[in-house]
């Protein structure tokens, strides 16, 4: 009973021994989606039972005639042997089925699946090398991407089991870049216009500014005195109240109101009257208001339409006599304020103009220097090119042609010259 049959015993001698050793390498990776070039296959062990070693009873029955029945004594021995064969055949059926499906799948989708195969030892090194370089490539790829498209990275990692390191890198880098530091970019964007080269446009802008200063210096053109704001406001108020009714009507009403209300004499009238009064202590105007009879002059004032009319008439008369200077007529306090501001503006504008002109001259100078500088830069690139050529020639131990040498010297001299001009500027 204790006889141990091992259905795993290989009947295939050397070949099966080879398979057996390969079997140990069987792992998930060998089935991973490597490219077809890296196909490494060893094939499944298809078990059979060694008849001479394990199937004694079976063999003895075979040795007999086909018609001779099996004896009852054989039965107990035959059964285990048949069972071993049975199990073996069943396993073979399963293995083959799996292999056929794998092959069919491989045909349908070549790169994806391959037969349930084992990595062969002699190919293993090559494979792992390839895998190493691949993972390196992946790493650099990931760096370049810097977690920009995380999805594609992760999907790639899904199909590629090559390196766990690769799996981690994108995750980490993407985590780090989330709080993006934008300050340096902002700083350079801010500083850039101050540090860049001066262009012709900049000079034109400066000249425009100088012209603006000139107009300031020319002084402010003060428009003539318009209507008093109160008149304007009264008109606007009425306009609003009455809606958009007739304009002429409104102005008429205002005039009417003025005749009714403005009985107070104007400043000229007051001055004149006070000058003519004998006793200034007696306020003639209060008397005028309270009792018109006691003030015979004013009560008998000629019938002018309004006090304003009277004021105007009085002014004309006084001017004609020569008591009033007609030129100074619009010299009110607003006017003096405007004049004062104008003077200040003129001073500032003059200073600005001075500075701007200085700036323009400096900018023009700088532009000339820029020109030289750009020429120097061009020559420098030429020079590095020549240097590269000469070092290459040296490495190859080749003599430079005379023409090339001359050219190099020429460029060097030109550069020196330009540097000098830049200094002297």
């Amino acid at each position, binding site marked *: *009973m*204790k*006889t*141990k*049959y*091992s*259905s*795993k015993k290989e009947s*295939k001698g050397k*070949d099966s021994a080879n398979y057996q050793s390969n079997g140990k390498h069987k792992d998930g990776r060998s089935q991973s989606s490597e490219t*077809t*070039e890296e*196909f490494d*296959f*060893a*094939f499944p062990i*298809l078990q*059979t039972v060694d*008849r001479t070693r394990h199937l004694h009873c*079976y063999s003895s*029955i*075979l040795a*007999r005639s*086909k*018609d*001779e*029945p*099996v*004896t*009852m004594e054989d*039965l*107990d021995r*035959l*059964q*285990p042997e*048949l*069972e*071993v*064969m*049975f*199990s073996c*055949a*069943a*396993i*073979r*059926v*399963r293995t*083959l*089925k799996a*292999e*056929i499906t794998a*092959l*069919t799948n*491989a*045909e349908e989708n070549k790169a994806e699946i*391959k037969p349930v195969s084992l990595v*062969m030892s002699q*190919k293993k090194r090559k494979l792992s090398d390839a895998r190493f370089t691949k993972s390196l490539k992946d790493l650099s790829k990931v760096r370049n991407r810097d977690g920009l498209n995380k999805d594609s990275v992760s999907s790639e990692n899904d199909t590629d089991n090559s390196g766990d390191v690769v799996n981690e890198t994108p995750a980490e880098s993407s985590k780090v870049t989330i709080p993006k530091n934008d300050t340096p970019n902002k700083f350079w964007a801010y500083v850039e216009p101050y540090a860049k080269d001066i262009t012709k446009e900049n000079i034109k802008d400066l000249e425009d500014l100088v012209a603006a200063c000139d107009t300031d210096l020319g002084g402010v053109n003060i428009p003539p005195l318009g209507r008093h704001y109160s008149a304007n406001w009264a008109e606007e108020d009425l306009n609003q109240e009455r809606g958009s009714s007739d304009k002429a009507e409104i102005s008429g009403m205002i005039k009417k109101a003025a005749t009714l209300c403005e009985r107070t004499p104007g400043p000229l009238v007051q001055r004149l009257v006070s000058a003519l009064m004998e006793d200034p202590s007696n306020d003639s105007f209060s008397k005028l208001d309270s009792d018109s009879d006691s003030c015979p002059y004013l009560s008998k004032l000629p019938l002018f339409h309004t006090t304003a009319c009277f004021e105007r008439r009085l002014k004309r008369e006084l001017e004609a006599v020569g008591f009033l200077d007609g030129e100074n007529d619009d010299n009110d306090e607003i006017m003096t304020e405007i004049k004062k501001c104008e003077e200040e503006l003129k001073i500032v504008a003059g200073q600005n103009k001075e500075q701007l002109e200085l700036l323009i001259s400096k900018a023009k100078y700088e532009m000339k220097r820029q020109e030289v500088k750009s020429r120097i830069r061009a020559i420098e690139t030429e020079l590095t090119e020549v240097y590269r050529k000469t070092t290459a020639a040296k490495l190859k131990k080749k003599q430079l042609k005379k023409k090339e040498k001359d050219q190099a010297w020429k460029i060097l001299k030109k550069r020196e010259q330009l540097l000098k001009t830049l200094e002297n500027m």
Partner: protein
Amino acid sequence: MASYFENAAIQERLKTLSSLVHEIEGERLKGEQTLDHITKAHDKINQEGRLTSYNQQKLKGLYNTALSDAVQEEELLRQALTKIMEIRNICNERKLKARSEGNREIFHRGALMKMLQVSAQTLPLWVGKADSKAPPLCGAIPADPNYIAKPGDMVAAMVKIVEGDEDNWILAEVVSFNPVTRKYEVDDIDEEQKLRHTLSRRLVVPLPIMKANPETDPDALFPKGAVVMALYPQTTCFYKALVNQLPTSVLDDYELIFEDSNYADGYAPPLKVAQRYVIDIKERKKS
């Protein structure tokens, strides 16, 4: 008369078996040839270092041939094993009939143990088609809750030992089942006890009637570390044990570690026990 017919039936089956064996050999040789071709093809592909589509097609063809060979061989082997099972069933029936007539075979202890071993070993092997699950009473798969063991079936039965006043799971053979009382009559397998027990269903656990194939149906085996009840070798009683190692082939047995107070650490050294005598018994309540 009856015995004549039975003998004839057995003889006929033995003859069929013989011819089946020859057929199997034919298939086997054919299959071996195909496998040889496959090996050669494998070697060639390995030498070339790559799998061309031509080779792939060739390989697929070979695999298909080998598959049909194997299927054919499997089928013949299944038939042969069925024949053997039939023969055994006829023998068992004859034995049962003889017993009911009062002709009970008397085994002495050594013969009994031998008989138990052989019957475990010759338990039919269950090999399902691919993707089919092992049926109840195959290996570790328990019986259906409504399953009734047939007369002559081996069971584990919980009986009271008269002297010791303690419970014991013993190996027994079903005599009958009374559907009214829902109780089994079982015979202690140990002739010396000569006891017949009447037990309720829950105290009778049928033993597997089929072996599970560790190579195709490892699911139908107890896992390593499982606590089971198993027949202690050279006894007819079941004891608690731990699965130490699973059988690796159809002919292999479990390796179990029994609880044994005779040993200093409380466990016996690993012992081999056939699939048939390893069962799952729920820990009974200590009432």
